[in-house]
C-alpha cells in the first residue's frame, strides 16, 4: 500500500505523460472519447499520484482507498492512470477498445485490474460510492472514497437520490469531483439541459462545496487537504475544466466529446509535448517503467 505524495513538479510532468498516452491510444484505436479524458487529466493525476492510498500489486487490498469514475466514457484517462500507476503494462493501452485487449470501451471491472465496478451508464457511480462509504463507516474503516462525475451527468436523476442519501448518512469520508467542462455531446450543458446553480444544489442537499481550477495542480492539492477537514457531511469539488485541455484544436469544443484524433491530429498535438506519435507508441510498446515525462 502506498500514497505517493508526489511533488507538484512531478505531478505536472506525469499529467503531460498521461495526455501523451491518451492521444496515442485514441489515435491507435480510432475510437473513444477525447474531450472529457483530457479535462479530467490534471485532477486525476493528482488523485492517483499524490492522494490515493493504493496497492497495484493487490488491487483488492482491503485497506485501499476507493476511487471510482462514474463518468465511464473517459476510459482513455482512467486506463492511462491505472497503467502509469502500475496496475497493468503500458503496452496494454495500445489495445484500447480492441477484441484482443482487456480495455473495454467503457470500464469493465471484470476485465481490468484497478477498476472497482463497471460503469458506462451515467448517474450510477455516486450511489456506488455512497455504498462503499457507508460500509466503511460501519466498519470504522479509515479509507476515503472518491467519485468522479461529469457535469452532463448531473442531469441524471439518480445522482440526486445519491446526493440526498450521502448527506443523510453523514458520509464525511466521501468526496465527489465534478469535471465541470460545461460541454456535452449536443453542445453546452447550459443549452442542452441547464445544471446550474450546481453549487447551490449540492449545498442545499447538505454537501460542503469546494470550487477549484481543475487544471491547477497546487490548488487541487490544497482542496484535497480541505475536504479531509470536513466533518459530518460529504464534500464535492466543482473542478472547473476545459474540454480537450492541452490540445489547442480540441479545447472547449464539444465536438471532441466522443471522437478520437486521427494519427495526423495526434501528431500535431504531441508536437507540443516534444514527442511524436511513433515515439510515444514505442514508449508504451516497450512497456518501460512508468516514468516522468520524456
Amino acid at each position: 500500500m502506498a500514497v505517493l505524495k508526489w511533488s507538484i513538479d512531478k505531478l505536472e510532468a506525469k499529467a503531460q505523460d498521461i495526455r501523451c498516452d491518451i492521444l496515442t491510444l485514441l489515435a491507435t484505436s480510432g475510437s473513444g472519447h477525447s474531450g472529457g479524458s483530457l479535462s479530467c487529466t490534471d485532477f486525476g493525476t493528482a488523485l492517483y499520484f499524490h492522494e490515493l492510498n493504493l496497492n497495484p500489486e493487490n488491487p483488492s487490498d482491503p485497506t485501499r482507498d476507493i476511487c471510482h469514475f462514474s463518468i465511464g466514457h473517459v476510459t482513455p484517462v482512467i486506463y492511462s492512470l491505472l497503467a502509469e500507476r502500475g496496475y497493468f503494462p503500458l503496452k496494454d493501452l495500445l489495445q484500447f477498445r480492441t477484441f484482443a485487449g482487456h480495455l473495454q470501451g467503457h470500464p469493465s471491472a471484470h476485465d481490468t485490474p484497478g477498476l472497482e465496478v463497471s460503469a458506462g451508464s451515467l448517474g450510477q457511480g455516486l450511489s456506488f460510492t455512497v455504498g462503499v462509504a457507508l460500509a466503511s463507516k460501519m466498519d470504522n474503516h479509515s479509507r476515503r472514497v472518491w467519485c468522479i462525475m461529469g457535469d452532463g451527468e448531473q442531469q441524471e436523476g439518480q445522482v440526486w437520490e445519491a446526493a440526498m442519501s450521502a448527506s443523510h448518512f453523514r458520509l464525511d469520508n466521501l468526496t465527489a469531483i465534478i469535471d465541470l467542462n460545461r460541454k456535452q455531446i449536443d453542445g453546452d450543458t447550459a443549452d442542452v439541459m441547464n445544471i446550474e446553480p450546481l453549487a447551490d444544489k449540492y449545498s442545499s442537499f447538505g454537501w460542503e462545496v469546494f470550487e477549484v481550477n481543475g487544471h491547477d495542480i497546487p490548488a487541487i492539492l490544497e482542496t484535497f487537504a480541505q475536504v479531509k477537514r470536513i466533518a459530518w457531511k460529504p464534500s464535492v469539488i466543482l473542478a472547473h475544466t476545459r474540454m480537450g485541455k492541452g490540445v489547442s484544436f480540441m479545447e472547449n469544443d464539444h465536438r471532441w466529446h466522443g471522437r478520437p484524433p486521427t494519427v495526423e491530429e495526434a501528431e500535431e498535438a504531441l508536437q507540443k509535448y516534444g514527442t511524436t506519435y511513433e515515439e510515444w507508441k514505442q514508449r508504451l510498446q516497450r512497456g518501460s517503467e512508468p516514468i516522468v515525462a520524456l
Partner: protein
Amino acid sequence: MHNRDFQWSLPREAWGRALVELGEKDENVVVLVGDNTISLHVHLFEEQFPDRLIEMGIAEQNMVNVAAGMSRAGKIPYYVTYSAFGVGRVFDQLRVTVGYTPCNVKIGGGHSGISVGPDGATHQMMEDLALMCSLPNFTVFAPADYHQTRLATLAAYDIDGPVYIRFGREKVPEVTSADDPFEPGKAQVMADGTDATCIAIGHMVAEALIAHDELKKEGIGLRVLNMHTVKPIDAEAIYKAAEETGAIVTAEEHQVYGGLGSLVAQVMATGTPVPMEYVAVMDRYGQSGKPEELLDAFGLRAKNICEKVHRLLQRKQSIRVI
C-alpha cells in the same frame, strides 16, 4: 376443485426470518429496504441488528448501487422492495453495475405476481423473471412456499454473485417441509406420473398438485416438477419430462412471454420436442381485486392446468394418428 389439506403461510415472512439467521451467522450481512420494512418482514432483522438494517427510502436506483458499493467494501447486502420497483424500475442498474461487474448483491423481489390483489396492475409484477433471466451472472430463484423461500434466501448467501429471489404478497400453501432439501439448479419432483408433466413455480406448484390429484381420478398421471431455480434452469429435468411423459404444461404467475414457459420451451426444443401448453398471464396487465378472484379470472388455477393437460393428451393422440 377441492384443496389438499395444506397449511398456509407467508413466504415474505420466511424471507425475513432467514435474514435473521444469516445476520447471526455473519456480521457482514446487511439489509437494505425501500420504505417497506414491515411489509417485507425485515423489521425482524432490524430488531436483532438495528445498525445493519439500512433504510434507503423511496429511491430504488440509489438502493441498488449502494448495495453494490457495500458489496465491494466486503458486505453481503440483501436488498428488498416490491419487484415492480426493485427489478422493473432499476433494470439498467442491475444490468450495468450488479450483473456486469458482477457484484455480490442479493435481491428480494416481494409482491410478485397477480395475487398481490387490490393494489392493481402497477404493483402486480409479472415481468420480473423475463428481465432477470435475461441478465448473465444472475441466479434466479422462484421458491414454492414458506420453507423454500427460507432455504432460497439462505442458499443465496453461499452463491458468490448476484441472486434474485421472487416471492408474492399472500399466504400460500406449504408444499414442502422445513426438512426438505433445497438443491439450487435441481428441479424438485413433487409428484410423479407418465402421461404429462406440469412444471410450476411459486404457489402454482400447489395448484399443480391439486391438478395431479384430480387427474388421477380420471386415470391420468401428471408429473409435477417444482422449478424453484429458474436460472440456471434444470435442462436435464426438462429433457427427461419430455422423453418420459411426452407432454409439458408450465404454470406461473408471470407473463406468458419471457417467463418459465418460454424458458422451458426454449430448452425442450433442443431435446425431444413434445406438445406444450402454458398456464400464465396471457399478455395483459393485472387489475384490482381479491387475490382469489384474480387467480380465477386470470386462469391460474388447478382447473386451468387440468384443461391444458386434457388438451395436451388430445394433441399427443393426434400426433400418433398422423
